[in-house]
């Protein structure tokens, strides 16, 4: 189960993690080792075994459709990195 540096950088891009080229090799090697070990899961027969997403067999709790949150914008934006006039700012996006 070998991950090339190219594969690694593609995954890093998907995950929005900047990884320097020299570090990419190290990560690729580490991940290859980890995934190689984990690939033993492929050896177990799971034909017609339904995947288990939730350990406890329960039904989701719902909430009533009422406004129950009072939003204090100043409080919520107090620690924000860059806010102006109540907006969160990011570098200009071209669409």
């Amino acid at each position, binding site marked *: 189960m070998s991950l090339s540096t190219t594969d690694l950088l593609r995954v890093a891009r998907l995950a929005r993690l900047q990884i320097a080229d020299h570090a990419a090799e190290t990560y690729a090697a580490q991940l290859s080792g980890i995934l190689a070990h984990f690939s033993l899961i492929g050896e177990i027969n799971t034909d017609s075994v339904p995947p288990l997403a939730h350990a*406890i067999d329960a039904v989701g709790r719902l909430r009533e459709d009422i406004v129950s949150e009072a939003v204090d914008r100043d409080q919520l934006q107090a620690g924000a*990195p860059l806010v102006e006039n109540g907006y969160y700012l*990011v*570098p*200009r996006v071209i669409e």
Partner: protein
Amino acid sequence: MTNSVIPQTLAAQSAALAEGQFSSVELTQHYLERINRLDGQFNSFITVCPDFALAQAAEADRRRAAGENSPLLGIPYANKDIFCTKGINTTCASRMLAQWQAPYDATVVERLHAAGMVMLGKTNMDEFAMGSSNETSWFGPARNPWDTNRVPGGSSGGSAAAVAARLAPVATGTDTGGSIRQPAALCGVTGLKPTYGRVSRWGMIAFASSLDQGGPMALTAEDLALMLNAMAGADRRDATSIDRAPEDFMADLSKPLSGLKVGVPSEFMDAGLSPGIRACVDAATTTLQQLGAAIKEVSLPHAGVAVPAYYVVASAEASSNLSRYDGVRFGHRCENPVDLADLYSRSRAEGFGEEVKRRILVGTYVLSAGYYDAWYRKAQQLRRLIQQDFVAAFSGVDVLLGPTTPNTAFALGENVADPLTMYLSDIYTTGVNLAGLPGLSMPGGFVDGLPVGLQLIGNYFDERRILQVAHQFQQHTDWHSRMPVAAE
């Protein structure tokens, strides 16, 4: 006040407070002084909040004077830095949240504070709960009070160390693949991961949402029960928290063990287990038999794939849960981003440590197009098989007993280079999270002066039973009351 005046357990302190032997303020000052004097060796706290704690203690004393007397009133505790606390930093031991303050309290925190507990501070942990040694913390590793050259375990390493070093009588922890039980084992304290859904996850910063559970850490099973009484309960803010009739987790502690059927999974007692730990498990089964229990061998046939199945599922969920850390609304933001892509990828690269990045990469990979079926879906299928193994085992026994870890505490730096070795130390604990069952670790002996933990696994929502077994075991052994020299 010296150590000899202050009893060490929550239960005993509660009785002493009720008798007026000391006030909550005095008790809190006692711990704050110890933290100040001793924690430099252990680095178990990221944030200590003396003013906050003393104000809470004073309020608890006022409530007591007004006639209130509940078990947790005025008792100090250490809070894992993964639980949101309004007004006090919540960092998850990460550079990403190093200065962050949540605008709200976690449900667990609300409940403990409503019960009158006093928060001494926020404890050290592996970054975003990813790790088994507390070595991935942005704030430096925590150290094992039994040997400060060794790890306390993780991810709740700070909480375990604080309790072991008597810097707090009890602490909160979280457990996703063993993160309460394993550090409890390595530090010689008692810790409980409740059934999934027992404790609300609102305000408990998510690592792997289908596996995470918050739980108590303490010196005794009785203290765990007292804490769980306050921590447990359905919460309308957490759709995965389960609605159940209220329970008193103390109710069965004193019941004798006669007739109890204990299963020991053969897969847990295989060649990989260190002989010293095996001996502790054997001694424990003897003790339980003397107390009236019957010991039986059981099998968990898929135990060998629990670690990879766990890591695939946990990494996948973590990779998604951690996408919100993007430098936009909170947390670390890189300087002078040139465009949006740069803002994201550099803020995240700077904000996260190596292990977190590794897990995000693995998680992203196993969910990505072309790999989902062979990896993520496969792991979820194994998860069902692992669950079925436990259900089958419980058809013949009441609890399972085994070692918590294959080895005692390893040296700092020993496993950092090879993540895989680190992951494999979770072999006895991860299956329990995948199945959502309750699990407890209690001290069961020492090997070369280092603590050994024994794991009890219960059936769904059967915390009372495993607490009973642990309590009875602790009435007849004294491993749990040993204290590391560094704590004296």
